[in-house]
């Protein structure tokens, strides 16, 4: 065993890590955001341990997890598809075909939708088999929250793709992490009221928080509750704004990438 070789290889691994901003951000922030999510979830569970029974809490966690997957995968799958084309050096071939920006976005959305349906089915079936959690037993209208979550996930995916187009593959880490960085403010496992003031304010600007405020109540009560239409409608409007902004942002970044020459290098 040569310690000189080990030293040089270790130095090489650390240097490649130091020069990769994405990995640094992930290694520093990801555990921090995990801590936020599970810290606030624990606080919420502790303060509600007498009022809610354990069974409905478990149902709530499984239920909202399935719905959170929609946001996460909608974002990740759109960006991942683009990354694959960049790595394959195939992106320029697509971009010099007669395809338009709007057609690219539409195709990305449709393909992510197919993947999300498959992933959701796997989760729904396995949560039923493993935990006897039957999503179809819940008597409510999922259309509003689903629309919010899809639109929000797609918006994030389109934004990340636009950033990678403009600034290059060094921002690939966002493809895997942006939705996760916004998860603490999405109030997936705990209500807004659990969050401290500043985080609470931020959560009002995150559309998924409106969907989860509603979904948690449904899963906890395990019965039909009247749709809080004002709140959900407001969430839907914000997610639509996100979606439209993401398309404008994508077009702007595409133009900027053409201007800066980054597109031609992909």
């Amino acid at each position: 065993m040569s310690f000189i070789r080990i030293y040089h290889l270790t130095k090489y691994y650390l240097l490649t890590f130091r020069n990769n901003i994405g990995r640094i951000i992930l290694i520093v922030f990801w555990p921090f955001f995990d801590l936020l999510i599970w810290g606030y979830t624990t606080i919420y569970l502790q303060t509600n341990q007498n009022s809610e029974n354990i069974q409905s809490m478990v149902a709530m966690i499984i239920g909202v997890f399935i719905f959170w997957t929609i946001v996460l995968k909608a974002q990740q799958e759109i960006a991942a598809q683009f990354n694959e084309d960049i790595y394959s050096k195939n992106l320029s071939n697509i971009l010099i075909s007669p395809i338009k920006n709007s057609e690219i976005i539409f195709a990305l959305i449709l393909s992510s939708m197919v993947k999300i349906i498959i992933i959701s089915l796997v989760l729904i079936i396995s949560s039923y088999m493993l935990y006897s959690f039957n999503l179809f037993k819940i008597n409510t209208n999922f259309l509003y929250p689903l629309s919010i979550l899809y639109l929000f996930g797609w918006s994030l995916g389109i934004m990340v793709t636009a950033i990678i187009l403009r600034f290059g593959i060094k921002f690939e880490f966002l493809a895997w992490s942006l939705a996760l960085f916004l998860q603490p403010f999405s109030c997936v496992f705990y209500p807004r009221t659990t969050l401290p003031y500043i985080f609470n304010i931020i959560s009002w600007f995150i559309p998924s928080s409106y969907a989860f405020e509603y979904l948690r109540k449904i899963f906890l009560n395990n019965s039909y509750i009247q749709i809080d239409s004002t709140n959900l409608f407001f969430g839907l409007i914000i997610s639509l704004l996100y979606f439209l902004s993401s398309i404008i942002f994508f077009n702007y970044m595409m133009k900027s990438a053409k201007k800066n020459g980054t597109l031609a290098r992909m």
Partner: protein
Amino acid sequence: MKKNPIIKITHLSKKIKKKIVLDNISLEILSGEVIGLIGPNGAGKTMLINTLLGLITPDFGTISFFGKEIQHNLSYIHQRTNLASGYSRLQEQLTVMQNLALFAGLYSTPHPQKKIKQLLHFFQLEKYINSQTKVMFLSSGEQTRLIICKSLLNDPDILFLDEPTASLDPLMKKIVIHYIYKLSKNNKKTIIFASHDLSEVKYLCDKVIFIKNGKITKIIITKNKMQKENLSKFY
């Protein structure tokens, strides 16, 4: 009577990170011409092709294809042009047929299966017609030939070739160059051919454009053998 150019470039300039990559390029290319772009690495050949294809926006100058300005007619122009670049690859996770079917779809190629099989046969890739082999397992030369197949799917009026023979063996190089030659002579296609290889350029091109530091340094019309021989002096 003067013929209308199929491509018209006027005062094209581009600076990237304070470096001039295209410097006041003006050019008119006629239908059916085969243009050679020659220059050292980093001269601006690929940059010029990428700008012409709309992947880079110029700082100054205008580009028009078929009398239409590129900015507002990109989709129309892309329908009638194509590129085979030695620097690009097709999606490595898909099979040869899946990749070509995608591009046949994007270009709305009539009778796509027939066209794909025809091209695969010509470029000696027919063994992949019914194969499940992913592109990632193809040799470098096979991948290059596949890119050339892709570039011919829409039967383009203008074909851009950016060092397409770089990773081919001498025999395949000959086949590809001969195919391009036939394409230009029989089908009257306009071809823009960027290469380091002067012998290929001599054989194929009617006009050779020398580029250095983003600037056209010389344009030589190579109608006869003697003019072709003289090319070496400038390279």
